[in-house]
């Protein structure tokens, strides 16, 4: 089979940005596309969840929550070893403990294109993984101090855009069920890939802008942004295997653990840890890790999952 066109759209955006082309999508489009993607992912998960809910799911969810707490705790000492200041290390650790819904959409499309089965309630795990790392990151930076405005912050974190869309979609999907949702099905069947392609074009353009700041952030950041996804993927894949997920499910969990947030966490960190340098974490997660996962990581994590299953 040829190159995945969705990935090619990303490469196209990346190149267009790097050669400083005039190409620019209207600002509202990025928001629109990400809203459609998140809702579609949530709906699909909800519909399937209604069909295969089981008590085992609760245990799995708790295990995934623990993974979300563990990932920043692994990342933080690594970053400190690379001699990042404490606050920056904590902020970057929070980004990598949390997840990228964009990367999730790509791995889902990748598996669907190859007819590889995966547990369809995975969107639930995306929502579960998004939050804990932010709290761990703040605690790593400041300890438990009174001057953190937890009320405003929890509003930002728990009612953030991506969580609301994912959970909203999930709940609508569960309540409506498969038959009633049929008219909306194109959202996650025939429409999903075209929307994802445009979304990735824009992501390519955005990523190329952040690549530019690499010169100022240095090789230590690059080393971390390339190495940590592999550590995270291994942790995610081992957990997925221990939970008895299918090969597809293990791949998705590995990809989630390997990905770094670039929407929810930067916004939360800006408010909670304003002294952390946002250029560092965004360059790492958007400029390096996101392209790495899309181009190299996902196929790699699938091989890892297959190897672990064998």
């Amino acid at each position, binding site marked *: 089979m040829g190159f995945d066109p969705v990935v090619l759209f990303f490469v196209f955006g990346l190149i267009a940005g790097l050669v400083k082309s005039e190409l*620019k999508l209207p*600002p509202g489009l*990025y*928001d629109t596309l990400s809203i459609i993607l998140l809702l579609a992912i949530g709906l699909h998960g909800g519909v399937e969840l209604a069909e295969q809910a089981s008590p085992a799911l609760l245990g799995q969810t708790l295990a995934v929550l623990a993974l979300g707490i563990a990932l920043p705790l692994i990342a933080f000492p690594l970053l400190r070893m690379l001699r990042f200041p404490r606050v920056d290390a904590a902020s970057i650790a929070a980004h990598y403990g949390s997840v990228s819904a964009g990367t999730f959409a790509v791995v889902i499309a990748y598996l669907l294109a190859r007819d590889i089965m995966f547990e369809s309630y995975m969107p639930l795990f995306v929502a579960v993984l998004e939050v804990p790392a932010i709290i761990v990151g703040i605690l790593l930076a400041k300890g438990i101090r009174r001057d953190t405005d937890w009320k*405003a912050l929890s509003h930002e974190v728990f009612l953030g855009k991506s969580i609301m869309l994912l959970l909203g979609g999930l709940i609508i999907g569960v309540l409506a069920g498969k038959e009633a949702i049929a008219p909306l099905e194109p959202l996650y069947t025939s429409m999903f890939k075209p929307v994802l392609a445009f979304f990735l074009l*824009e992501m390519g*353009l*955005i990523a190329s*802008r952040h690549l530019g*700041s690499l010169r100022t952030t240095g090789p230590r950041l690059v080393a971390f942004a390339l190495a940590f996804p592999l550590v995270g993927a291994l942790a995610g894949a081992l957990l997925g295997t221990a939970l008895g997920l299918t090969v597809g499910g293990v791949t998705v969990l590995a990809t989630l653990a390997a990905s770094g947030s*670039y*929407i929810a966490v*930067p*916004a939360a960190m*800006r*408010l909670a840890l*304003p*002294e952390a340098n*946002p*250029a560092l974490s*965004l360059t790492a997660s958007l400029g390096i890790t996101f392209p790495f996962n899309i181009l190299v990581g996902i196929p790699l994590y699938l091989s890892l999952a297959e190897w672990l299953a064998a």
Partner: protein
Amino acid sequence: MSMSTRTLLTLICEAALEPRLIKDLQRLGAPGWTLSDARGSGTRGVRSAGWDNDGNIRLEVVCGRERAEQIVHHLQERYYDDYAMICYLSDVEVLRPQKF
């Protein structure tokens, strides 16, 4: 036509601060404000507003001198160290001073 002088406070800063600033303005008794998206470049680099995370906002408040200085003082104390933010005051002439 009689015009009165009031102070225009213009604030340009990171979009992430918007909800907090609105709360602050309400608490400090700003009579009203106008908010718009902005982009530009400064000591913190280019802020292109290409997407959520790297946009600026421009916030304008017309009020009495004393209140404007109070707001500026608060902003400086609370945000100047850690956020990309500039703010300036200018005199403007208004038609209906009782509004401000």
